[in-house]
């Protein structure tokens, strides 16, 4: 694939904002799966991307358990050879309900090619991940 899914030579960018609410994680999964499918990923990789996006959203929701009014952002950058995904949210400093068993992050690391968990500043948290087209 030498062009983006839309046929242009530029990277297509798709952004999605969702309330920090468990009810909408399935919307993030559906979007991820649809984008990965359009880019030409195989079925196994589509499932991996879908699960990784879901786990990242779940992780951020757990970090914000007291703050259901806020939003989190998902940005998909459709590159020629890979999909780059940024998922970010405000971090609730009073929230203690984190990924206590570490399963979610462990799963993202196993499912994606590259994963980076960063805190750009004290009040926000971001997960960046890549999946290569094979």
């Amino acid at each position: 694939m030498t062009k983006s899914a839309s046929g242009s030579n530029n990277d297509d960018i798709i952004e999605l904002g969702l309330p920090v609410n468990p009810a909408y994680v399935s919307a993030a999964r559906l979007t991820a799966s649809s984008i990965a499918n359009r880019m030409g990923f195989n079925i196994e990789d589509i499932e991996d991307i879908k699960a990784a996006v879901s786990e990242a959203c779940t992780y951020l929701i757990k970090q914000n358990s007291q703050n259901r009014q806020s939003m989190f952002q998902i940005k998909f950058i459709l590159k020629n050879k890979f999909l780059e995904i940024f998922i970010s949210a405000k971090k609730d400093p009073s929230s203690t309900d984190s990924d206590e068993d570490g399963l979610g992050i462990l799963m993202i690391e196993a499912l994606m090619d590259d994963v980076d968990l960063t805190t750009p500043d004290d009040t926000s948290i971001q997960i960046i991940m890549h999946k290569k087209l094979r």
Partner: protein
Amino acid sequence: MDFKLNSLYDNTKNIWNITIEGEIDIYNSSLLKEKLNALIQEHKTDLHINCDKLEYIDSTGLGSLVSVLKKVKQYNGNISLCQLKPNVAKVFKITELNKVFVIEGANND
């Protein structure tokens, strides 16, 4: 997306036969735990879960299953899962929970 749980107690084998359909994630994983806990309160037996129609399970769903398994182990019972879809079998494998639960007939090769 939600999930559906059907359960049938097998008198002769003394086992719960359960099917789970749909998707389990952070939205409904605590409900899964509640439903399974209610079953083991009724009959303290092994749980046999058919996952033929389980499309997706996330880390919180796995957490619910582990929590129920801990209670089942207290009376020396077990939880077995069968007919896992490849993507579901994969999450058990990468979390190594395939060594904790009895996994039968997974088509994940």
